[in-house]
């Protein structure tokens, strides 16, 4: 170890000074050793590290000072000379520029996405003042929604630290008045919604407080996208009357393209008009936001709202027990889901860039090592330190600029590619571009690289200490220690990314292995939303569903068809929950079990292949007016009736919306409703004709088909069209595609992470090969002597291989440190595996072992074949 210290000191100070410092340390150690050996050892290493770090820092500062002192008079001639010099080694130059372009290009592309999604401010006036008000049960993390309309009204009434509060909720509309009836996603908004955001309409005006009064005329503001697609960007659309869910609505404005609030898919906004007043306090599916007063902090505003919430809790214990408002800044609130995976990708791509830069720096140092005589000659002819530094700085700048230029050129198509590959639920993707902020980041990274690329040869080859031509041949192995450290750094980066990619791959395979609870193959889905005036009453809706099912069932190729209010792998958020009350049990306010509620047709379980575990499924006899029945899922049965059969038990919904208690007639398995990674909550299925919720107007038809399900979709659509030509459909697709959609985000990060890990590994392998080959060249005399003294070629082979193995081992140790630091970020993306998953590490060990052998084989063989006579004479 002390030998290593002496070697390290030799890197940061002149040999004789380093030697005398090592001697001083030894002397101090021996003096202290007589009183305490352990104390002496601690003193030795502590003092040594302090001296070492100070000298290293001084050396770096000296180098930077020289670079900073470089004057650029006569720059043109020297820049041309540097370009010519780079042109003399075209292969190396090309490899350097290509590596940098890849590093900068990937980095810029991923940073564009990360910046555009996670950091780009909202396009409003003083966007930092906008905060979301979520609701969360005490001790739980809030979701994206979480306030109810009555709670919002009470919060808004109190105002407190806000300039104002506004709310909106997801609402689907059947839009007629266009050529074909259209189903669009919109928001029903409070009158304060647009004034608070402060963004004017592109044409016409926005919704104001005057528009939002019960019974007032319906007005509508269109998104830029809807205006372009269905009204051809016609300015005369303002003032035109449309029909929304059968109600006349006048278009009053069109929003600019950048306005997509609160979600990307919103196509129109209409005022609440008292429609929301009947929604109960328990239904927390409103996105509420506020604009803070300038002097108010988020914590103060949250404390104010908490006081209001406590009063509401006392007043309405049934619905508000344990609920607290939680404030979140707008952008983090909107991007909460995507944040960990995007940040992980960003860290990964930074590692790729670092490894690429280190790789390139090693090449630059090797290139400069070959030019030592040239530097010595320049020094002998009177070139000062600044002059020599200028040479490396200009060359490094050329390489950096070329790499950055090519990288930025790559980044724009890469961003387009990323946008097309990215999962559709990634928020705020539409505004992602390579902008000035992103280019600035890339330029800053390039500047750092240029400094490192200029400094590395100066420091590691001691080019600034050359005094004459003779010194060119003096140094034995210039910079080999530094180069090995850089090499180990590359392995460390590759190891860290391999671990991340490995764990993500294992998680993905675990997700795929999850049983969805039904058979998603050969299932087609079509969604409808049965809105007034055609489907005002339950009878009208039942009639439509019955006719549609009979038409679908008789379609050639369809084995069976069914309807459900919330299908598995539901990406539309069509679920509803209710508070259940089991007959004969008493509940404290707010302690009712919350269950998911689904209305289904009698054939649903058989159609999707969901097994009835106990009791029976539904039949056509479970019609309107017949005794109310329900089927529950396994989780609900286990949770509410542990250890006993729930068949025959009765329960009702605490809201009292249905005519009475439901009798449980069957138990079915759990299905993957919210993707494979989320366990299904306790769920109740009820026959569609007996459904408890009048507002549950949306249905999904599922049809099991024979043969290619995708090919059947057009005929299914056409048959349904025949049932009611004015009823729009959406979500036409296959269940398999829905499954893939829920996997898209995980697949996206996995593919990118695997790409980054592979690239880094390739760079590290190239670096390892280069380092070992260089070492063999430097040690040719030593190897020659060993062979001349009787060493077998196999010994020499092992000697070089061992050096490679040591480098990889050192890299793995450092890489393990990086993984340890980054583990909190990785852990959030894991599923079914732990961070210490043994198989992942075994696989990585095998990969790194193979890389070591592949990269080390050629230099080791060359070393083993060294001709001792030539090697010794050559020196």
């Amino acid at each position, binding site marked *: 170890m*002390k030998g290593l210290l002496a070697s390290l000191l030799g890197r940061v*100070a*002149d040999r*004789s*000074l380093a*030697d*005398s*410092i*090592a*001697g*001083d340390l*030894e*002397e*101090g150690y*021996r003096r202290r050793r007589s009183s305490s050996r352990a104390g002496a050892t601690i003193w030795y290493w502590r*003092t040594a590290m*302090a*001296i*070492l*770090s*100070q*000298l290293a820092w*001084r050396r770096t500062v000296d180098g930077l000072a020289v670079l900073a002192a470089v004057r650029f008079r006569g720059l043109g001639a020297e820049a041309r000379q540097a370009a010519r010099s780079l042109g003399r080694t075209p292969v190396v130059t090309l490899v350097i520029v290509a590596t940098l372009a890849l590093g900068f290009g990937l980095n810029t592309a991923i940073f564009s996405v990360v910046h555009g999604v996670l950091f780009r401010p909202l396009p409003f006036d003083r966007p930092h003042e906008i905060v979301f008000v979520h609701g969360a049960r005490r001790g739980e993390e809030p979701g994206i929604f979480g306030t109810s309309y009555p709670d919002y009204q009470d919060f808004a009434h109190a105002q407190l630290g806000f300039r104002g509060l506004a709310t909106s909720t997801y609402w689907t509309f059947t839009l007629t008045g266009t050529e074909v009836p259209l189903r669009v996603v919109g928001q029903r908004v409070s009158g304060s919604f647009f004034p608070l955001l402060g963004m004017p309409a592109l044409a016409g005006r926005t919704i104001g407080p005057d528009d939002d009064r019960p019974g007032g005329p319906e007005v509508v503001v269109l998104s830029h996208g809807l205006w372009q697609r269905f009204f051809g960007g016609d300015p005369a659309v303002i003032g035109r009357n449309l029909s929304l869910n059968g109600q006349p609505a006048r278009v009053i404005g069109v929003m600019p393209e950048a306005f997509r609030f609160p979600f990307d898919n919103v196509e129109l906004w209409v005022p609440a008009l008292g429609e929301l007043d009947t929604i109960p306090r328990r239904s927390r599916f409103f996105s509420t936001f506020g604009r803070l007063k300038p002097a108010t902090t988020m914590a103060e505003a949250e404390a104010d709202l908490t006081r209001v919430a406590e009063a509401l809790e006392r007043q309405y214990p049934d619905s508000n027990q344990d609920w607290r408002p939680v404030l979140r800044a707008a952008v983090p609130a909107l991007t909460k889901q995507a944040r960990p995976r995007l940040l992980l990708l960003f860290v990964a791509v930074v590692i790729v860039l670092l490894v690429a830069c280190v790789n390139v720096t090693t090449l630059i140092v090797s290139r400069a090592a070959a030019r030592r005589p040239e530097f010595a000659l320049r020094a002998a002819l009177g070139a000062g330190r600044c002059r020599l530094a200028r040479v490396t700085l200009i060359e490094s700048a050329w390489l950096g600029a070329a790499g950055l230029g090519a990288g930025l050129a790559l980044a724009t198509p890469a961003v387009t590619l990323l946008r097309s590959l990215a999962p559709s639920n990634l928020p705020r993707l539409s505004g992602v571009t390579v902008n000035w902020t992103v280019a600035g980041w890339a330029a800053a990274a390039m500047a750092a690289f240029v400094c490192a690329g200029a400094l590395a040869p100066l420091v590691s080859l001691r080019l600034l200490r050359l005094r004459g031509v003779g010194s060119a041949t003096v140094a034995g192995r210039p910079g080999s220690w530094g180069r090995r450290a850089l090499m180990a750094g590359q392995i460390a980066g590759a190891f860290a990314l391999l671990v991340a990619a490995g764990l993500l791959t294992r998680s993905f395979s675990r997700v795929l292995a999850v049983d969805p609870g039904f058979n998603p193959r050969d299932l087609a889905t079509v969604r409808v939303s049965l809105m007034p005036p055609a489907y005002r009453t339950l009878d009208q809706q039942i009639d439509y569903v019955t006719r549609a099912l009979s038409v679908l069932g008789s379609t050639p190729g369809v084995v069976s068809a069914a309807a459900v209010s919330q299908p598995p792998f539901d990406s539309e958020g069509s679920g509803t929950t209710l508070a259940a009350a089991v007959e004969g049990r008493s509940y404290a306010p707010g302690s009712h079990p919350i269950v998911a509620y689904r209305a289904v047709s009698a054939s649903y379980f058989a159609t999707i292949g969901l097994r009835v575990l106990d009791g029976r499924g539904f039949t056509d006899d479970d019609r309107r007016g017949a005794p109310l029945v329900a089927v529950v899922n396994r989780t609900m049965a286990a949770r509410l009736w542990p250890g006993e059969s729930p068949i025959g038990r009765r329960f009702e919904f605490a809201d009292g919306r249905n005519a009475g208690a439901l009798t449980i007639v069957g138990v079915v398995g759990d299905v993957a409703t919210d993707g494979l990674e989320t366990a299904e909550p306790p769920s109740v299925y009820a026959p569609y004709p007996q459904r408890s919720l009048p507002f549950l107007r949306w249905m999904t038809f599922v049809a099991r088909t024979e043969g290619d399900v995708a090919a059947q979709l057009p005929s299914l659509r056409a048959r349904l069209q025949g049932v009611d030509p004015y009823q729009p459909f959406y979500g036409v697709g296959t269940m398999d595609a829905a499954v893939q959609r829920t996997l898209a985000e995980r697949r996206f990060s996995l593919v990118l992470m695997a790409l980054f890990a592979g690239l880094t590994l390739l760079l590290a392998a190239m670096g390892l090969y280069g380092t070992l080959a260089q070492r063999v060249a430097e040690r040719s005399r030593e190897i020659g002597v060993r062979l001349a003294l009787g060493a077998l070629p196999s010994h020499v082979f092992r000697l070089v291989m061992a050096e490679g193995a040591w480098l990889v081992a050192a890299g793995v140790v450092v890489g393990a440190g990086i993984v340890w630091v980054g583990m909190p970020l990785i852990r959030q993306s894991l599923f079914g595996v732990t961070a210490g998953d043994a198989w992942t590490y075994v696989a990585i060990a095998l990969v790194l072992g193979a890389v070591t052998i592949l990269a080390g084989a050629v230099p080791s063989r060359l070393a083993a074949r060294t001709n001792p006579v030539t090697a010794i004479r050559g020196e």
Partner: protein
Amino acid sequence: MRPAAPALGEFEQIVLLAVLRAGTGEDAYGVNVHAELERRTRRRVARGAVYMTLDRLEKKGLLSSYLTAPTPERGGRAKRCYRVTKPALAALRESRRALLNLWQGLELAE
């Protein structure tokens, strides 16, 4: 006007004086210069800073150095010993004179 002596930083002056003190009776080298510095200034001084300053002063021609024979108690390594050069002595004298001039007639209240 006297010929200008090289300008000295505060820490450089302190190190030169410590070399002079440590060098009376024995060779002045890293260990005893550092010890002298800490004892006289009554403050913690980083060893790295002392080594860097000794190196810099030598490069400026204010110190000269020589190596002693390697000894076992130093792990077979030589000791680098320092001597203050004439220009350094002139610079120290100059600095002292300037300081005394500045202090003359000044009384700072405690």
